[in-house]
Structure formats: structure tokens, C-alpha cells
């Protein structure tokens, strides 16, 4: 008997079945998620990113930040994410509806960045951290992204330009961010999944708070 067609058909059936289970079913469950109108903020969630932040998302992808950083918060009962202040609620499919490519990540060599826009709102400290993470966290092993900055040796008594990073960044040098660095920081500042959703409410509901928490509030 010629078994090749049999093996072939069996294979196609097995693979088609797994496609159904692992892609079609999830697509059915979450793939059509619509933007949700949130009463508390009076806007649809998630809002699209502004142009600069969208460019920053491209920098994030190109630099492979996803190799070390996730963008997903686990439910409170599964792991310490919420307790660590990486988010006040778990992330659900809706949070990613505007992302392309979705940079979920699977390895946390660095902290989760889902809500880093709320945690680290300052442009300056974000830029300094990108230029040399060890200026901010002494034992950090995050790579230095020096190449996202212009670096020029200062003449004696010359003042660095206004958009330069503070003088203690690199003594004797003027360090100014390239456009990619500014876009990347705009993207980081845009990262936040902190709006109460129907299927992922925020724990603050017990206080009867009506307005959404202000964006500068510490988690």
C-alpha cells in the first residue's frame, strides 16, 4: 500500500486542527475586540498614539527592547506584578488594540513597561537612563544606547547647548538626543494601561471615585 498520501492527509488534518484550536478559537474570542467607550474618561479606549510616539514604537521595535522587557501585567493572583506597582489591573486583549506590532515580550530581564509612562513621566530622566542606565541604577545591565545621542567634546569654557543633557551625564562632553531618542521617550511616556475597563476594572472602584485618576498620580 502506498502510505504517503495517508501520511500527508493525516498531517494536513492534524495541522489544520491545531490551527483551529490555537489561532481560530482565540481570534473568535478576542480578535474582534472593539474600542471601548469608557465613562470615566469620556473617550474611546485605547486612543491611537500621536505621531512622535508612533515613531518611537518603531524605534522600540528596531532596537529589540522586547528582548528584555515585557508589556503585560498578570492578574493579581498570579505573580507579583500588581503588588510591584507595574500596573493597577491586569492587561487584557483590548489594551493592545492599537499596537502594531504588538510587543508583548516573554522575558523580563528588565522591569515590565506596560505602565512606564506613568511611572517615569520625566523626559529628562528617561533620556539620561537611555544614554547610560548606570547613571540612574548603578548595577543595571541594560545596554547603553549612546548611539541614539550626538556626543561632542566641549572646548574649554564652552557652554553646552540648551537641549543637551545635564553636564554630569558625561563630563566634558555635550550630549544631545537624536530624533530617535526623543521619539522613543515619547513612546515610553505614552505607555499606560490604567483605564478601568468593563472586563478589567480598577481596584479603586470601592472609593466611589467617579473621575479617572490623574495621570501624574503614583501607582
Amino acid at each position: 500500500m502506498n502510505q504517503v498520501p495517508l501520511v500527508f492527509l493525516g498531517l494536513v488534518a492534524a495541522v489544520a486542527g491545531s490551527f483551529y484550536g490555537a489561532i481560530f478559537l482565540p481570534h473568535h474570542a478576542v480578535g474582534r475586540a472593539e474600542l471601548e467607550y469608557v465613562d470615566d474618561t469620556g473617550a474611546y479606549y485605547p486612543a491611537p498614539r500621536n505621531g512622535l510616539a508612533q515613531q518611537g514604537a518603531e524605534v522600540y521595535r528596531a532596537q529589540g527592547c522586547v528582548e528584555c522587557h515585557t508589556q503585560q501585567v498578570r492578574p493579581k493572583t498570579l505573580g507579583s506584578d500588581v503588588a510591584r506597582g507595574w500596573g493597577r489591573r491586569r492587561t487584557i486583549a483590548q489594551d493592545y488594540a492599537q499596537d502594531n506590532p504588538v510587543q508583548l515580550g516573554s522575558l523580563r530581564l528588565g522591569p515590565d513597561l506596560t505602565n512606564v509612562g506613568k511611572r517615569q513621566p520625566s523626559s529628562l530622566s528617561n533620556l539620561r537612563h537611555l544614554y547610560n542606565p548606570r547613571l540612574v541604577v548603578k548595577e543595571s545591565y541594560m545596554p547603553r544606547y549612546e548611539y541614539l545621542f550626538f556626543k561632542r567634546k566641549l572646548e574649554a569654557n564652552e557652554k553646552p547647548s540648551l537641549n543637551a543633557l545635564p553636564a554630569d551625564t558625561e563630563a566634558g562632553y555635550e550630549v544631545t538626543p537624536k530624533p530617535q531618542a526623543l521619539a522613543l521617550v515619547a513612546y515610553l511616556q505614552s505607555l499606560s494601561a490604567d483605564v478601568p475597563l468593563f472586563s478589567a476594572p480598577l481596584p479603586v472602584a470601592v472609593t466611589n471615585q467617579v473621575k479617572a485618576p490623574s495621570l501624574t498620580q503614583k501607582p
Partner: protein
Amino acid sequence: MGDTKHISQSASVVDPDRIDRSCRWPVVLLFTGAMSWLIIGLTMGLFSSIKMHAPGFWAQCEWVSYGRLRPAFMDAVLYGFAAQAALGCSLWMISRLSRVELRLSGIAGIGALALNAGVAFGVLQVLAGQTTGFTWMEIPRQGASIIVGGYALVALSALYTLHKREEKQLYVSVWFLLAGLLVFPWLMSLAYMLAVVEPLRGVMQAVVNAYFVNGMTYLWLTSMAMAVAYYLLPKVTGKPLRSHDSALLCFWTLVVFGGWSGLSLMADGPLPRWLLGVGVGAKWLIIVPAAAFTMDCLYTWFAGKTSANEGVAWPYVLFGSLSFPIFVLLDILSTIGPAPRTLLFTTYSQGILHFAVFGFAGLLFMGAIAHIWERILGGRFPKRLPFIAHLLLSLLGIVLISGSYLLGGVSVGGKLADPSVAFTAASSTMTLFIRSATTGYLALLLGQIILAVALLKSFATNTATIRAEFFQWCCGGRSPGSDKKARARA
């Protein structure tokens, strides 16, 4: 039904030497490419690991920053090494098991060249920052299309040879090879279609990515490596396979559960719990093919008297096959009960992947390369020493890399589970483990260089004849003259 039994009965059909010679050039091309990419890839892996404990190392150079080097390393190893090694083994094993000379060997050669060009182009694209941002799919669509095209051409040659076979009985390796040959182009085109070319919305991209990574591990890589194991086991032990039926059980359960378990990689992610449960359940069921395979191996290996342990391949087959159940158990362990709470998102998963790619598939492929290389170039290796050194260094490297990532994952994960421990306090323990992983990469790389040199040397011993035959093959197939000459030499 073991393959060994048949050879003695019908050796008159086609002389194995002729079959070996018919595969020579495409397979040599593929194996040379495979070893080169393994060395290039491991060099990048070593560099990326060094960068973790010395972040200032080459920090000015954008092309070798960690976030680019790391994916380039994995892609070079997967598409450069594993894909080519698997294809080379398929061409040879299919010709041998079909008892016919390789057909369309020119097309296979072109496919091999295209595959190499695609990997080179793709790795450069990743280093240049054009990555897609999805695990194992970082190579942008242009490079990936060339890779799929090249792979499909080689697969075409293998499938056409199978179509023309003289041996009607399909040995179980052929089943696995069929799966491996077909699943790769299918998975690649599907995943790129749904996540890169016409991306699905939102989190579905991550689901497609998870399906792809899981499928590449359990459907493609595992099938290919098992084909090699089922072929070489009877060869190196001189005994027939214990049971054809349990091998078939292994095959069917693997292709069913191996695909369904895709969602388990999204563990605790932003999906409904029941969906994640389906994936995890399927992953647990992979214990069935793992058990069947392990029983086959152990029984074939240890029951009865082993007649022929000559050749260099047997330790590779032994260690490679026994790595599979370990790999599956480690993978399943990380999904049981509270384990994901600590192990998820740590380097534990990296440890598993390294173990699967280098320990299980890698060792089997390397053993097969050594086994096949001897036969297609017609001459035994003069010395065993390089192979012993290669094996020891590879084992050391694999244990060091996987061990550090696994233990590092357990230790850092345990600290992170306690919210009162600061993130940097937990992650700084990782540095120690990364250092020992670096040593592992170094050992693994050294081992591969030794193997490559040994292979090159045996190639260089009869360069004159080989070169003449190679030109003949390039200029339109095997002329009868070259056959005669080669036979005279043999």
C-alpha cells in the same frame, strides 16, 4: 520492520555507494552552510551574553546592540544551522530509505544556495534594525521569503525522490521527514501572513507568534530530530527498532498535540483563561509521544547485545535522544500549578529552548552530519579525537548554558515573586548565571570549530577528484565518467 533488515534482502536494487554519491553535492553544500551558520550564530550568542555582564562593551555600535544581536543569533542558528542540517539529513535519508539516487539534485543545490543567501540577508536586516519584533520571526518578509523558497526547493527534491522510490515500505523516519519538510514552509508562510504582511489586530499577533514558536519547536524541529534518531538508532546499535507501532503512536500524538499546545506560550497573558488552559493541556499530553520515543530508544539501546558501536555517531545519538524527554519534562514542569507564577518571564524558558535546539536537535544533527559526511565523501575519518573533543565541549556548553538559564530563572523568579524585593536586587543575582552561560557559549563555540575543522580536513584529503566531480555536477549532472572514476577510487 527495521530498516536494517531490508538492506540485506534487497541490496541488489541500487548500490548504496551510488546513492551516496548522488546526494553528495547538495548535502555537502547544506552541511557546510549549516556548520558555518552555527559558528557565526554562536559567535553572536557569545557576544550577546558578554554584553549582559559588560553593558559598555561595544556600546557605540548600533548593529551589535543586545536587542539586535540576540535575535540575529537565534535566527542564524534556527534557519542557518538547524534548517540546513535537517534538509541535508532529509535528502540523504530519503534517498537511502527509498533505495534510489537523489532526483533533482541541481534544484536542491540551488535551494541550498538560496537558503544561505536568505539567512545572510535576513540576519543583516535584523542587525540593521529592520526586525519585525516577533520571536523567531525577526527576519523581515523579504529575507524570510527567500528562506522559505530555498527550503521549498530542497524539499521538492526530497519529495520527488520519495515519489520515485523503489522501497514500498515507508520506514518511520520518512513519516517524520514528511512532517518536517511540509510543516516548515507552511508555518513560516502562515505566521508571516497573519502577523507581518496582513497583520491581525492587537493581541492576535502575539497569539500567531506563540503558535509559530511552539510549532517550530514541537512540529518542525522535533520531527526532524526524531527522523534522525529513528534512522540512526538501529544503525549505531546494529539492532532493529523495537516497535514500529509505538513509533507511529509517537508520530501521530506529536503532530496533534504539538500544534495545539501553541497557546501555552502565552501563559497568564491577556487572553481568556480557558483558552490558555487548552494550550497547557495539550502541552501536558506531549508526555505521550515523549514516553513512546524514550521507550523505543531505551529498549533499542539496552535490550539484547549491541553488535556494532563503531563509527563516530553513537554518543551523539544516545545523548541527543535522551535529551528529548528531559526537554519535554522541563517544559511541562514550568506550567504545572504555581510554577508559572515564579518561572514565567524568567530565563527558564531560554534554558528550555537552548536545551531543545542545541541539546536535543543539535546533538542529533551533529551526529548525523558526521555519519553522513563519511559516507558521501567515501572515506572514514582518520581520527576519533576531534569528535570526542567536540562532543565533550558541546555537552559542557549545553549543560552550562541551559543549566545557568534554568537555575537563574528559578532563583530570580523566586525573588521576584516576593514584591518586597526590589527588581534590581532580584535581577542582579542574574549576573552570576549569565557569566556561566557565557562560558557555556564559549565551550559550545570551540567545540563547533573543532568539528568544522575535522570535516574540512576529511574533505581536503582527496580534493582533486572531488573538485573534478563538483565541476561536472555544476555543468549538468553526473556524467557516467565521473561515476566510473569515483568507483575506481572507492
